[in-house]
């Protein structure tokens, strides 16, 4: 004999049926208990109106507790109240009060049975049943009466609700509770600083029901239960293929995040106030919308209008994305936050939009009334579950308490999310430097450590810290191809020109011609269709162009494949930012030749020793990977020194080392050039004369002896 599933009566009360695993068993006799005003009548009425139809009728018996007329008047305010269903072929309201008052329990019971026979209802409500307790002359009479009534209700296959002001003490002592099939209790108490209503299913035969208390509210729609513990469950992901990854498209954040963020993940964006969490979240949605990905932000501090204004101030057209329906902003004022209710609301809104990106600003404010860390952890887990089930990526802002080393408010939230982004700041002189760090991202090899971050027009700009990419070697110089340097005589000294993708360090004292030499190098590139980039760390672009003009060196215009001149004063850019800015510019120009004039300026005061070496190494590696042939000038501190490059340990950085120095001949200083190193080339190590010709520098033949000078044009 096959087992039959018990038929269930849907309650029609939002989120109640999941607690009951589908509804109330049909034919059950259920007590709805609770103090006055807790919502018993509303609950019973809602169930009736949801189920009543021409074929399924309901009997609603009122006793002495509340006149039927008053009941009907108040219930008519709810949206579930349908006057059409209150007709004779819908819900029949029967007043038991008179017969109870005049003739007692037995006659009242007979009336109930007579109505059962006549109406044959699917649902019966007796409101209140407690009055029978009060009118029974003994517990024995009450037991017999209750049993007989329950039997008749059962025989007529009705699902019955007996309402009453029953409390926990009744469960143990009232004989009625031994014969009924279910107990639902509604109550009100203080939680997290405010009065909250709760519903609890203490008993329901044949049902593996939730036994927890669940918050609910009474709205114009009736009772709405918030049971995120039951309704927000993580879906089984085992059968899903490996989740694709999301690129944030926020500045260089994706470089830090490695392969991207797996869909279904949630990340905390943590920081003290003022570190840029809201801007980060907003830009995360905005960049996603620009790429066609829908996003939703739940904001508990800033209104939509203020967020839109902030976006306009950053130069974004967030308004357009909202109008297109790609971004939604949901603002819930802090005093109105109801955690249970809004968790379910968030779930519905995320699903309704089909959001791929979810931002919550902030989790700290959302849970500000929650004092228990474990409860906070549970709620963050539920938020993360919403994101996972939607296969979105969530960014949850969280405030870090000042002066702590925590990375979240409670110190537990990070244990239930998939990743974390930490925003910090530090005073440096009169400025405040911002930083970003990816401290966690599951299943992803992300870029560790702290990186520079700026927030300005356009939004967030991230400058990944100098770091050699793990395991990657710079591509080798192309030994088959040599580029003309543009400096007559220099190619011969190098063994035929510069190898493509090589890095050349030119060291020399001030005024010896390093800048002129480097400009000639770039101008030669322009002749061969190789755009160039000159990075000035001390002089302005105008000064550089004037120098080139004075020497007759033609640089062309960047838009025509000429030389672009960038001015990056070190005091305005940190070392970490330099590489990022430079890389972007090289790519956008398509530059093939690069000069950085005065690389020693890259290292600012206070940087640890070896930073220049590290910076140059990374620069060199990056330039080679970008396919650029580069020339870096380095100022020597002494006129006659030959040790600048080697004593600073910079020799391994470059493929070619060229030294410019003065040689004292008699009473004059004669500029000289020596190629100390030319990797992959048979170069000439002899010292050569530097000749200032009419169109720049020329390199003369090897200097045979002291005292001989050639005539040269003095530098303007």
């Amino acid at each position, binding site marked *: 004999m096959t087992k*039959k599933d018990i038929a269930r009566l849907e309650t029609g009360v939002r989120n109640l049926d999941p607690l009951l695993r589908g509804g109330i068993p049909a*034919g059950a006799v259920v007590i709805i208990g609770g103090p006055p005003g807790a919502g018993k009548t509303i609950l019973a009425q809602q169930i009736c109106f949801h189920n009543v139809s021409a074929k399924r009728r309901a009997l609603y018996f009122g006793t002495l507790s509340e006149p039927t007329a008053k009941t009907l008047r108040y219930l008519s305010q709810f949206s579930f109240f349908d006057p059409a269903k209150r007709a004779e072929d819908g819900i029949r309201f029967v007043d038991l009060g008179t017969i109870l008052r005049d003739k007692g329990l037995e006659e009242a019971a007979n009336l109930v049975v007579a109505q059962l*026979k006549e109406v044959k209802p699917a649902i019966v409500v007796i409101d209140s049943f407690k009055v029978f307790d009060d009118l029974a002359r003994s517990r024995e009479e009450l037991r017999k009466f209750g*049993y*007989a009534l329950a039997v*008749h209700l*059962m*025989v007529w*296959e009705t699902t019955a609700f007996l309402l009453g002001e029953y409390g926990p003490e009744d469960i143990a002592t009232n004989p009625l509770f031994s014969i009924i099939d279910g107990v639902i209790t509604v109550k009100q108490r203080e939680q997290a600083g405010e009065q909250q209503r709760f519903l609890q299913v203490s008993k329901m035969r044949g049902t593996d029901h939730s036994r927890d208390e669940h918050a609910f509210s009474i709205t114009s729609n009736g009772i709405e239960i918030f049971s995120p513990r039951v309704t927000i469950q993580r879906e089984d992901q085992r059968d899903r293929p490996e989740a694709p990854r999301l690129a944030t498209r926020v500045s260089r954040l994706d470089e830090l995040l490695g392969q991207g963020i797996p869909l279904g993940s949630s990340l905390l964006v943590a920081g003290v106030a003022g570190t840029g969490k809201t801007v980060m979240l907003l830009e995360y949605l905005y960049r996603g919308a620009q790429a066609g990905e829908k996003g939703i932000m739940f904001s508990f501090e800033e209104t939509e209008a203020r967020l839109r204004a902030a976006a306009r101030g950053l130069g974004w057209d967030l308004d357009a994305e909202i109008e297109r329906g790609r971004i939604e902003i949901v603002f819930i004022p802090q005093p109105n936050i109801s955690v249970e209710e809004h968790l379910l609301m968030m779930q519905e809104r995320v699903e309704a939009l089909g959001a791929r990106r979810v931002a919550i600003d902030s989790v700290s404010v959302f849970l500000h009334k929650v004092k228990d860390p474990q409860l906070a952890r549970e709620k963050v887990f539920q938020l993360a579950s919403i994101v996972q089930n939607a296969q979105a990526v969530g960014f949850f802002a969280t405030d870090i308490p000042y002066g702590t080393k925590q990375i979240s408010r409670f110190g537990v939230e990070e244990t239930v999310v998939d990743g974390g982004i930490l925003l910090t700041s530090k005073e440096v002189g009169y400025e405040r430097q911002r930083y970003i760090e990816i401290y966690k991202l599951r299943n992803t090899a992300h870029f560790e450590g702290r990186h520079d971050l700026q927030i300005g027009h356009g939004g967030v700009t991230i400058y990944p810290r100098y770091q050699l990419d793990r395991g990657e070697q710079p591509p080798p110089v192309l030994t088959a191809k040599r580029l003309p340097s543009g400096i007559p005589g220099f190619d011969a000294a190098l063994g035929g020109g510069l190898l493509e993708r090589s890095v050349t360090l030119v060291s020399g004292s001030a005024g010896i011609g390093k800048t002129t030499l480097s400009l000639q190098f770039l101008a030669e590139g322009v002749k061969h269709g190789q755009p160039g980039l000159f990075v000035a760390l001390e002089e302005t672009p105008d000064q550089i162009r004037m120098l080139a003009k004075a020497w007759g060196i033609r640089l062309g215009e960047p838009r025509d494949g000429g030389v672009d001149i960038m001015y990056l004063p070190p005091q305005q850019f940190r070392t970490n930012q330099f590489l990022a800015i430079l890389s972007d510019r090289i790519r956008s120009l398509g530059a093939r030749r690069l000069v950085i004039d005065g690389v020693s300026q890259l290292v600012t005061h206070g940087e640890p020793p070896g930073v220049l070496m590290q910076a140059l190494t990374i620069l060199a590696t990056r330039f080679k990977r970008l396919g650029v042939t580069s020339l870096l000038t380095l100022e020597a501190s002494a006129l006659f020194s030959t040790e600048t490059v080697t004593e600073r340990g910079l020799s391994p950085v470059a493929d070619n080392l060229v030294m410019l120095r003065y040689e004292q001949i008699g009473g004059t200083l004669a500029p000289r050039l020596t190629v100390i190193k030319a990797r992959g080339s048979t170069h000439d190590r002899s010292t050569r004369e530097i000749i200032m010709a009419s169109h720049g520098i020329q390199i003369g033949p090897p200097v045979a002896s002291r005292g001989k000078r050639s005539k040269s044009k003095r530098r303007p």
Partner: protein
Amino acid sequence: MRGSDTELVEAFAHAFDTLLRTAEATLGAITLGAILDRVLYVSAERFPMLAVLRPEGLAVHWDDLRERTRDLGRDQLKDGIGFAMTELLTVLGNLTADVLTPELHDALATGEQQS
């Protein structure tokens, strides 16, 4: 014909009582009494001639119906008492998830053989 109508009622009464006795052991007197009350009420609603059937404890008083057979058509009688039997089996089945149904059918079959 009148005699066969009476026999029909007797056969039905015997079967009805057999079902009640079989179910009593499992369901108890109060429940069974309520079931009987329902079945008779509904049957009388559908076939007013059955309004003469009255419960006597956990049995039915059939005498009034026997006396009325002379005024009833055979088809009407068959339909009415058939409905009542079906209603009883249906209610018993619904309330017990058909757990008792095989046992009740066996009891009916045994009763037929004995009669």
